[in-house]
């Protein structure tokens, strides 16, 4: 029997107070995610239970009980407090998936500061705009990422503390840098938890939009309520499960369901901090007896590519529930997983702004392969007409996904950008920016983004950010960036550029530009193809028309070109 039981009954009888009661929370009480994920579990008598099995490069292994993570997060929190970090300060986590990343997440929250997790593969420019926007006061990082921080430090007057968790004394620390070793620090058994309330800010994740710089999505401690319940009902975690969320906590899945969800339930999770290899992943499942696995379509398609025979070399019988998020899960991947694992991957849909799962295929529910599933109980979701923003009355029509605001994990605003936040609402609906249709049984079917944002491997990339960075390359005169279809990543970045006089369009220059973007922004943002153009298609007012280039890549009709200044 699954945790959710009968979906229709849950829908009828639903109230978020179900989660509040299970978490012993009442309105007005102190609510601190850091405490809920560690101290509370220990108070329930589960302090000796393993919270984290961790494996890194070269077979390096570590293991932490819930009491270990309680003390470690206390220790980190106390260290930050001694540096002068206080409630409301932004503390960036810029680390690979090492244990310190997970433990710091709780430690920062325990002292009432705001966690700003950033993907460690970000280049210095991506890091700079996000730290500048958040006016981040401290960053916790590793030696290997220090050079990127040092490069931008002088541009960030608010960044007072650079905490290095693996300092080895080989080279002197520089301006604002301080070493912190969890292994050498005096363990802090008791830490005064800052009395955050439901609306106290907790996590600041950055997400990309079509225009402008990335936006900081502000979440609050009350997000725990829906993150806890969706973990329980969608991921179906139970007492003896060993859970593996493959997402990096630099992104929202890695925090909502890679830290908060499982640990607030007192569930053991496993983390693999190595690069992708199908063999390594199967070996990890076998070794740790993973029972619940939350992954992404790109990874699933990469596993498919590695072949069925490889699966047979491992004992994966511990698996009992598989779920997926990040981009639409194609029907082939659902059917493939059913064939090789004897259980299908169940798709789920949500985004950084929603904070928790909104639409999903629940355990025990009839699956329609290729569909995102149905709304989570307590969520009012539909598809609205893109012109009137009224819900369609007939099934099957393609429009915009829309949700009635008010669920606990909903973002509270964009950091320093209330105006942009307000633009996300039309006629009382929150619009995530995706197109879909809704069938007569209440199943959602994803169609695509409603804007130019590129979804590559489940991560959103802003074409504006890449175009701006391209213009900083000495050879590039103009740039336009669009999504290009890709079998594994769904979409990848493609750039169209015109060159400045004196530069020859050739393969060598293409590679130089690719690497320039990879280092400046991130590997995700690197164009996987660059097409040289004599001119870019523009409107009469001179605006580059991305949609023409997009249509070309996707083999679509170009549509109205009456405002074009010149065609290719």
């Amino acid at each position, binding site marked *: 029997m699954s945790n959710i039981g009968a979906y229709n009954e849950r829908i009828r009888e639903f109230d978020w107070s179900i989660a509040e009661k299970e978490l012993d929370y009442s309105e007005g009480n102190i609510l601190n995610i850091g405490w809920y994920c560690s101290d509370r579990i220990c108070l329930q008598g589960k302090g000796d239970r393993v919270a984290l099995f961790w494996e890194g*490069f*070269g077979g390096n292994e570590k293991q932490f009980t819930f009491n270990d993570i309680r003390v470690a997060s206390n220790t980190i929190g106390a260290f930050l407090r001694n540096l002068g970090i206080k409630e409301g300060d932004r503390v960036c986590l810029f680390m*690979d998936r090492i244990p310190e990343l997970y433990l710091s997440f709780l430690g920062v929250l325990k002292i009432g500061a705001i966690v700003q997790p950033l993907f460690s*593969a970000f280049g210095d420019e991506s890091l700079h705009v996000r730290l500048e926007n958040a006016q981040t006061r401290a960053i916790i990082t590793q*030696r*290997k*990422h*220090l*050079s*990127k921080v040092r490069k931008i430090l002088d541009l960030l007057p608010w960044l007072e503390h650079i905490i290095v968790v693996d300092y080895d004394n*080989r*080279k002197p620390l520089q301006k604002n840098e301080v070493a912190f070793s969890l292994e050498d620090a005096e363990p802090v058994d008791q830490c005064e938890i800052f009395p955050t309330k439901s609306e106290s800010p907790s996590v600041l994740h950055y997400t990309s939009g079509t225009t402008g710089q990335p936006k900081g999505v502000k979440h609050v401690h009350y997000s725990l309520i829906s993150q806890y319940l969706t973990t329980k009902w969608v991921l179906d975690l139970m007492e003896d499960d060993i859970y593996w969320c493959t997402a990096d906590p630099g992104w929202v899945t890695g925090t909502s369901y890679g830290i908060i969800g499982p640990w607030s339930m007192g569930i053991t999770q496993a983390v693999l*901090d*190595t*690069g*992708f*290899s*199908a*063999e*390594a992943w199967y070996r990890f499942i076998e070794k740790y007896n993973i029972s619940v696995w939350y992954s992404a379509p790109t990874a699933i398609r*990469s596993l498919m*590519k*590695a072949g069925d025979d490889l699966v047979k070399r491992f004992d994966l019988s511990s698996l009992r529930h598989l779920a997926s998020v990040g981009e639409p899960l194609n029907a082939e991947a659902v059917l493939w997983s059913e064939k090789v694992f004897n259980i299908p991957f169940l798709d789920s849909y949500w985004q950084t702004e929603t904070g928790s799962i909104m639409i999903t295929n629940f355990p025990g529910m009839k699956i329609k392969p290729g569909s995102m599933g149905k709304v989570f109980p307590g969520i009012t979701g539909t598809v609205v007409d893109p012109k009137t923003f009224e819900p369609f009355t007939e099934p099957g029509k393609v429009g915009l996904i829309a949700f009635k605001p008010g669920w606990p994990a909903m973002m509270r605003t964009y950091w320093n950008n209330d105006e942009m936040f307000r633009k996300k609402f039309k006629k009382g609906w929150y619009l995530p920016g995706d197109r879909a249709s809704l069938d007569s049984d209440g199943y959602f079917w994803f169609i695509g983004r409603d804007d130019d944002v590129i979804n*590559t*491997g489940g991560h959103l990339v802003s074409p504006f950010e890449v175009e701006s960075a391209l213009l900083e390359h000495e050879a590039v005169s103009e740039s336009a960036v669009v999504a290009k279809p890709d079998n594994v990543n769904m979409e990848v970045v493609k750039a169209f550029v015109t060159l400045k006089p004196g530069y020859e369009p050739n*393969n*060598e220059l*293409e*590679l130089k530009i*690719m*690497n320039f973007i*990879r280092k400046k922004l991130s*590997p*995700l943002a*690197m164009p*996987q193809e660059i097409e040289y153009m004599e001119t870019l298609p523009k409107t009469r007012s001179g605006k580059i028309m991305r949609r023409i280039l997009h249509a070309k890549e996707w083999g679509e009709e170009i549509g109205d070109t009456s405002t074009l200044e010149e065609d290719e």
Partner: protein
Amino acid sequence: MEEIKDVVLNYVIEEYLEEDDEEITYDTPLISGGIVDSFSMVSLKRFLENKYSISIPDEKATPEAFDSVNKIVTLVREFAG
């Protein structure tokens, strides 16, 4: 082939290592070791194709085939004829 080995090794060191004093060998795991991620693998593939005037089909450009300098040399050798 010794020369290809060193060309690839030097390129990886120059382009993908984040810490300047990190050391890698011909057998250091690149993809599974987290030095080159799956997105960056595309630029490494492009480098090899440009440098050796070859075309590596996508189905052969797997994380396993790119997982060390030695494995990459084997791949280049296959397509360099």
